[in-house]
């Protein structure tokens, strides 16, 4: 399928206000997840699993780690002669539209991508959602409903607090999207389900070009997501219900919760053992060694670790050392962390390359895990 109907647009304008402790030097797209992934792996894999060969990534800032991670796009088969990965960074020119607040000017500056890309329909996706979705099916429904814009949503229970501050989708009886809104925590529980936007849209490429151009010509200083939200009054916007596993990462609490939720065999199997694989950059790490003294239960452990201590209900990234006598409970330990003898940690997130010296004790709570910054020595 050389000339796929779909092409990808990855939108990195994502709110990371409540993720600051782990997005200090990286965008949401680059947040390490579940031992060996980064958040953008879901978007890239979902796109390429649907046969997409052209992906444009619209950058904001702090993108060093992201470019390092994606490189030529080889892991996702995106090192192509036809298609491939295209990077678009914000332009810093004194041009009128680059002074605006939103990211729409970045899209407008690169409008050629939308007009020249082979492929008829854009899939616009963010990177803060964890899901394994068949985008071919979404396209089929987009075509059969004659929609101008299709937005993918998931119905959740009113008391599911994992999607705070996500956008909601409100449909009329014909499945048309009437309005977009914000998911605000409410104390009184209603019986009705809420529909959460996955921030995945399918739209014809001529229409997305027009919408971006219109936003610029009318002087709206907005984000691309606003363009879609405003479209409901003018275009036929239809919802597509995604019924699979979905988690959102928009706060430290949400990140912690989504990670811990993967310590369930059914969830791992649904997201990662599907025929559609979630791919990531590989690192040629050695197998993980469990010593005679190790004691590991209910945990996800990446390659290259050496474990001599106790690990319970935790996620260990690549190349983590857990020394004798150390106890790790309900924690997320990122790449290259060295946990020395007799440390005791519970409800902790350690960012990359942290050293916890002998006997360090740290304790957080599930609602408020202790976050140890990248490269710290405690």
């Amino acid at each position: 399928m050389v000339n796929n109907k779909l092409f990808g647009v990855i939108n990195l304008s994502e709110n990371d206000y409540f993720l600051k402790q782990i997005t200090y030097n990286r965008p949401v797209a680059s947040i390490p997840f579940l031992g060996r992934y980064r958040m953008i792996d879901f978007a890239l894999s979902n796109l390429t699993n649907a046969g997409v060969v052209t992906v444009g990534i619209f950058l904001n800032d702090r993108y060093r780690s992201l470019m390092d991670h994606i490189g030529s796009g080889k892991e996702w088969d995106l090192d192509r002669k036809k298609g491939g990965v295209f990077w678009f960074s914000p332009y810093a020119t004194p041009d009128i539209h680059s002074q605006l607040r939103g990211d729409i000017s970045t899209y407008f500056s690169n409008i050629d991508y939308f007009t020249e890309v082979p492929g008829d329909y854009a899939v616009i996706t963010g990177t803060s959602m964890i899901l394994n979705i068949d985008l071919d099916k979404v396209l089929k429904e987009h075509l059969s409903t004659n929609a101008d814009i299709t937005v993918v949503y998931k119905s959740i229970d009113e008391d599911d607090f994992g999607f705070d501050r996500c956008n909601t989708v409100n449909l009329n009886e014909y499945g048309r999207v009437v309005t977009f809104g914000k998911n605000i925590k409410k104390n009184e529980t209603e019986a009705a389900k809420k529909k959460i936007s996955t921030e995945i849209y399918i739209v014809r490429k001529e229409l997305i070009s027009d919408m971006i151009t219109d936003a610029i010509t009318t002087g709206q200083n907005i984000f691309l997501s606003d363009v879609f939200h405003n479209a409901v009054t003018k275009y036929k916007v239809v919802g597509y219900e995604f019924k699979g596993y979905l988690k959102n990462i928009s706060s430290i609490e949400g990140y912690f919760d989504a990670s811990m939720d993967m310590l369930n065999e059914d969830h791992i199997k649904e997201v990662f053992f599907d025929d559609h694989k979630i791919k990531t950059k590989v690192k040629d790490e050695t197998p993980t060694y469990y010593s005679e003294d190790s004691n590991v239960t209910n945990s996800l452990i990446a390659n290259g670790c050496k474990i001599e201590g106790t690990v319970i209900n935790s996620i260990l990234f690549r190349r983590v050392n857990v020394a004798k006598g150390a106890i790790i409970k309900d924690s997320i330990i990122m790449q290259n962390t060295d946990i020395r003898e007799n440390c005791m940690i519970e409800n902790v997130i350690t960012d990359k390359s942290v050293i916890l010296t002998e006997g360090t004790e740290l304790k957080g709570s599930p609602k408020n895990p202790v976050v140890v910054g990248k490269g710290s020595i405690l």
Partner: protein
Amino acid sequence: MKKEIIAMILAGGQGTRLGKFTKNVAKPAVPFGGKYRIIDFVLSNCSNSGMNTVGVLTQYQPLILNTHIGIGSPWDMDRNEGGVTILQPYASATEEKWFNGTAHAIYQNFSYIEDYDPEFLLVLSGDHIYKMNYEEMLDFHKEKEAALTIAVLEVPWDEASRFGIMNADKDLRIEEFEEKPENPKSNLASMGIYIFNWKMLKKYMNDNINAGIDMDDFGKNVIPAFLDAKERVFAYPFKGYWKDVGTLESLWEANMDLLDQNSELQINDRNWKIYSKNPSMPPQYLSKTADVKDSLVVEGCIVHGLVRRSILSPKVVIGENSEIYDSVIMDDVKIGKNCIIKKAMIGSSAVIPDDSIIDDNGKIAVVGEFEIYQEVK
């Protein structure tokens, strides 16, 4: 385009002594150490030694080996110039050219070597587990102004009669070569790693073959020819871990050696990584009932049972209440509930049903790839 040195890896061997594991797979492609195949070691050595023009000679059951190597990207050998090339026997206008021996395989591919017009030719085996810097061996070869350098390993005296033994003078110049001698005069065993001056090798092989002399084998024919002609043949002493994994016992032992954290092999040396094709799988999941000790586990495994002194490969699933001891479990093996497995090697994609017991009373039990295990009552 000229290259100073190119490497040729002999990977055509059938490896009959590995039994079920080489039924459909060439020996160098047999899975090893959880996430590797045997040939990854020599390919990674080449990559880490800066040898980036490598010919891999395949013959027996090459499909999986060829797929594994591909264009060589895991070893950084997807190069514009050189890189890795799979060399298979081929038919020509005059004859069919099956490889009759180690040297004959190289002889049949002289045209590949000629394309690079190298000064030196490095000849390697695809079925040894070791880490070695070939560049240091090349430096030694140049320093000795040798015609041929053979890497040697000191082996225990009582085992020396199993190897090709080099008798060298104090300057390491080889005076005599004995294949599996009854009464060895030295304990320097050939590792099957040679650096030749390419022009000299070409001359000896062409001259002798044209004269009707058998030149099929390096050990039997080529090395004796060099020694008889009093060429400068040197022994390059190697120190460190080296294992020929030609038998089930040695393959099992080499796997178990990886569990030794003080092993000289040190596969976790970050300056000498062993590269392989990596599967896209999530981290290994150890469930609430899992109990894993003294073992190596890789991505994509799901473990509910007990694992001791064992090696698990990608996508291995071990059910509840199952117990695995001293075993090597290759990729995609599904082990059911309540199984007991002792000292076994279980081939890729095999299925071990619930309540199976695999125990060959101290001998290595073998389950072949894709086999659905049935207990012999």
